[in-house]
């Protein structure tokens, strides 16, 4: 057991810390320093900067364009990226379909898709949920029927986050109706921009942003060569991906950033002749949040370290999803409390009424109600723990 960083790893931290602000364009750096949120075009701009540096995929193997870093370097890198408040990259290509293709894709698929995920030339979104397939995902109904070299797709996906910005969508489609519902599902890749019959309709979240979309398929043709893995074999792969997704969507690194954000708000919120940060009662609330963050971050690190030793993130990642998202929400709740009257404000308020570092807090506070729902609701995660770890009967 050894948790210390070597001098070489500490040098690496210094290198990353110095590089980030130098690599950012001036506008982006200003927003990062103010703790602001970023637009899609800024996120993609940052994606390309990381790509050119060769740091876009720390968690991919070196042979396919990853950095080949060990868990300590990846941890340090992630900490520094978060610390600098750099734009959060879209996870759907780099962290979801990319690793799935690396593990299950054929040579042709890897050559076709991986380089453009890395470069950011192709942006991805996820087509899993349907109006009647949420927590019960395996009951999904999007039909894919073979016709010549293609599948013909009919049906609807929902919660296709940022589909309006995507070039490609990975979907779970029903290719078989015999046997258990899990057995007739295939994993398909569709060109969401150029395939006739696919329509995307974004809708507003309570956060006031168009993070969610619905995606319709009407006689949309997808070549069979865009099926990853065997026909009717999509469920097992999707499940492997979900395990990975869960460690990611706990928002643990982001929670660390929110701890700092809350402190900043408290420091800049005047109370009488001092600030909110002088109030011991409020400081103790922040302290409790930060201490909980340390506990969750440590649990995350233990999982990452185990993954480094070749143990796949299994059902344990459900814990991180649960405690991570609860922490994430709590952090936004405390930020709202810190803002006092400013918490009335919305992101379109003028700077004179709402300072830049508070601008997106209310939006995020509202939107992040989704955190305990998406990626498999926290109740589903508890089912997974009860069944796969605790082996409770009938679970």
């Amino acid at each position, binding site marked *: *057991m*050894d*948790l*210390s*960083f070597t001098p070489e790893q500490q040098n690496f931290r210094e290198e990353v810390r110095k590089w980030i602000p130098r690599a950012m364009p001036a506008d982006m750096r200003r927003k990062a320093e103010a703790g602001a949120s970023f637009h899609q075009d800024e996120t993609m701009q940052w994606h390309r900067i990381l790509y050119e540096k060769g740091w876009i995929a720390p968690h991919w193997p070196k042979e396919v364009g990853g950095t080949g870093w*060990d*868990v*300590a370097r990846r*941890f340090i890198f992630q900490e520094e990226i978060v*610390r600098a408040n750099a734009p959060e990259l879209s996870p759907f290509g780099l962290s979801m379909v990319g690793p799935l293709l690396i593990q299950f894709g054929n040579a042709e698929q890897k050559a076709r898709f991986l380089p453009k995920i890395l470069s950011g030339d192709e942006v991805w979104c996820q087509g899993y949920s349907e109006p009647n397939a949420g927590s019960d995902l395996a009951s999904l109904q999007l039909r894919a029927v073979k016709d010549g070299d293609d599948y013909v797709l009919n049906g609807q996906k929902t919660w296709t986050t940022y589909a309006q910005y995507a070039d490609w969508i990975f979907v779970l489609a029903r290719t078989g109706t015999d046997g258990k519902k899990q057995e007739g599902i295939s994993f398909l890749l569709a060109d969401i921009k150029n395939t006739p019959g696919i329509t995307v309709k974004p809708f507003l979240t309570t956060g006031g942003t168009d993070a969610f979309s619905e995606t319709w398929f009407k006689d949309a043709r997808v070549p069979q060569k865009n099926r990853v893995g065997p026909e009717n074999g999509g469920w097992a792969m999707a499940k492997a991906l979900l395990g990975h997704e869960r460690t990611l969507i706990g928002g643990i690194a982001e929670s660390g950033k929110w701890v*700092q954000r809350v402190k900043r708000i408290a420091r800049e919120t005047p109370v009488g002749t001092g600030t909110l*940060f002088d109030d*011991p009662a409020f*400081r*103790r609330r*922040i*302290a*409790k949040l*930060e*201490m*909980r963050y*340390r*506990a*969750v971050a*440590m*649990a995350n*690190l*233990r999982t990452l*370290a*185990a993954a480094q*030793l070749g143990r796949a993130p299994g059902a*344990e990642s*459900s*814990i991180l999803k*649960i*405690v991570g998202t609860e922490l994430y929400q709590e952090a936004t709740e405390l930020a709202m409390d810190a803002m006092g009257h400013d918490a009335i404000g919305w992101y379109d308020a003028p700077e004179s009424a709402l300072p830049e570092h508070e601008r997106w807090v209310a939006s995020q506070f509202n939107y992040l109600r989704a955190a305990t729902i998406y990626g498999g609701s926290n*109740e589903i*995660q*508890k*089912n997974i*723990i*009860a069944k796969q*770890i*605790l*082996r*409770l*009967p*009938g*679970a």
Partner: protein
Amino acid sequence: MNFDLTEEQQILVDSVARFVQNDSGTERFRKLRESARGWEPAMWERMGEYGWLGVPFPEEQGGVGGRFVDLALILEQLGRGLVPEPIIPSVVLAGGLISRLGSAAQVERFLAPMIEGRTSLALAYAERQSRYCLHEVQTSAVRVPGGYALRGQKVWVLNGHAADQIVVVARTSGSQRDRAGLSLFVVDAGARGLSRTPIGGMDGQRTALLELDGVEVAEDARLGGEGEALAHLEWAIDRGAAAACAEGQGAIQELFDRTVAYLKQRQQFGVPIGSFQALQHRAADMFSELELCRSTMILAAIQADSDDAEERQAEISAAKLQLSHGGWFVQENAIQLFGGIGVTDEQDEGLFFKRLRVLQGLFGDADHHVDRFQRLGRFSADR
């Protein structure tokens, strides 16, 4: 970065687990809680022979030269059996201070026999009005020819009833709440003017109330410099807190495992109660808190050896908060899931519940550690 146990650590953990399973389970604890001493000198000597009592001390002092985390791994296993031998007061607190501050002669006289399991030690720091503040000390040490005279009262001294020597915190200068002016003295249990009243704890372990009525000690009974004790005392109490987290971890784990087994076995409405989703989700939440306890416990045990006082305090406070809140979540729900029998003395679960509650309050409760955390310089510093 590697969280896996080394081969040596794994061997150590396995051997302590075997010891608990074969020789020191809850049946033994039940017998001992009825005894005056509460623990067995013969077992203490065995622990000395195994080398457990010397783990955190350097080899030149007769120790094993291990790290604190090795001791934490031992305590974690002992916690699963409620083993009552006084490792925390004797090895972690008093032993730690003697090892850190003692002269060669003091180490030879007080530490070496303890490492062999021939004697045991205690640390008397808490006073009625001190709560968790370590420099809130009324007990005085006044210079007399050849040494000092100690006067005052110490409460809830762990192992104070049985210890051969007691390290006493006393004020050599300054007023009641001054940070400076505290000194440490090794007081023999049989010293004239020292009276100790054994007080049983709710967890079945023993403490003592000490009255020091002009107890005279020689100059060479002082540990470290006069008036300079506080930083060392803080260090020792931090390690006590990390040790409480480690022992508590074993208790939480044991309580949780027993609860899950019970959920599978207990039938109501014709099915095991563990098939009910309301209880499954509660068990899942308990498991999450248990894992967070383990994560913070490991980090605290590693930081216990750190020279960076702020980092040590930050991680140990975070672990102690997690033990107090997350651990509490596990223990209160364990009793709830056992139902009525969880509240019977006959059932072991209540024993773990009580020990945990004692550990949660020792060396600072949740409120204390949250408050200490917000006072750290790095809490306020910009990142």
